[in-house]
């Protein structure tokens, strides 16, 4: 379906959009912790992007602690859906702050001020 394919007209880099899609899927519990993700090739076909874009998105998610790369065992889900949901919301917050002209340090201070 075309609505799922990531469009070039959407704001943000394509790999960030792909990461957001996978992050949202993880937050919704499509894959539980410890489960293997389908190959990047199939994810790329579903999202309508290049495999390298998906691989870059997967590396981003690994850096966030949501995924784990294991040699010979593929990519497994490491984080819980709760953690994934929080990370997704944090990303949304960063995007919102950028749109409204907040710098990174200002946003950090803002978050730290919240008790």
């Amino acid at each position: 379906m075309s609505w799922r394919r990531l469009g070039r007209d959407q704001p943000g880099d394509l790999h960030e959009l792909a990461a957001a899609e996978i992050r949202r899927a993880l937050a919704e519990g499509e894959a539980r912790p410890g489960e293997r993700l389908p190959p990047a090739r199939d994810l790329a076909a579903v999202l309508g992007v290049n495999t390298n874009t998906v691989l870059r998105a997967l590396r981003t998610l690994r850096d966030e602690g949501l995924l784990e790369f294991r040699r010979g065992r593929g990519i497994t889900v490491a984080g819980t859906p709760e953690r994934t949901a929080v990370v997704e919301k944090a990303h949304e917050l960063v995007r919102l702050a950028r749109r409204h002209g907040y710098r990174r340090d200002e946003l950090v201070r803002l978050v730290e001020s919240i008790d």
Partner: protein
Amino acid sequence: MTPTFAIPRRAVIEDARRRQRRRRVVTGSLLLLCLALGLVLLLRPSPPGSGPPGVASSAPAHRADGRQDAKPIRSVACAGPQHRIAVSPPAKGDHSDLVVRPVILSLTQAVLHHLPGGRVVGLCLYPVPARG
């Protein structure tokens, strides 16, 4: 009345898994098909005289000294692991127990290996009488 819009659930991982399964099924089927085809080709009985080039031939055999042998033996059955074969129909004289030169034996073995029943048709052999 306020219109409502049903937002479809975007199951990215589910769809990718489905796609992966479909790909596996297609690959597995192709592999099985190739395997079955290979087996059929391997086990298919070969028609007489269709052995490897130079082995299953009906041309008269030549001795090492250049003389042509009397008559090629048309049918050979393997008698055992030794360098002895039984010839059918038997050649003239007492040649029911023969020794085959190693080079011929290797060819014979190669032909016997791929022909069912151990029967070779159209193989040219010239018998060498057993020593002793």
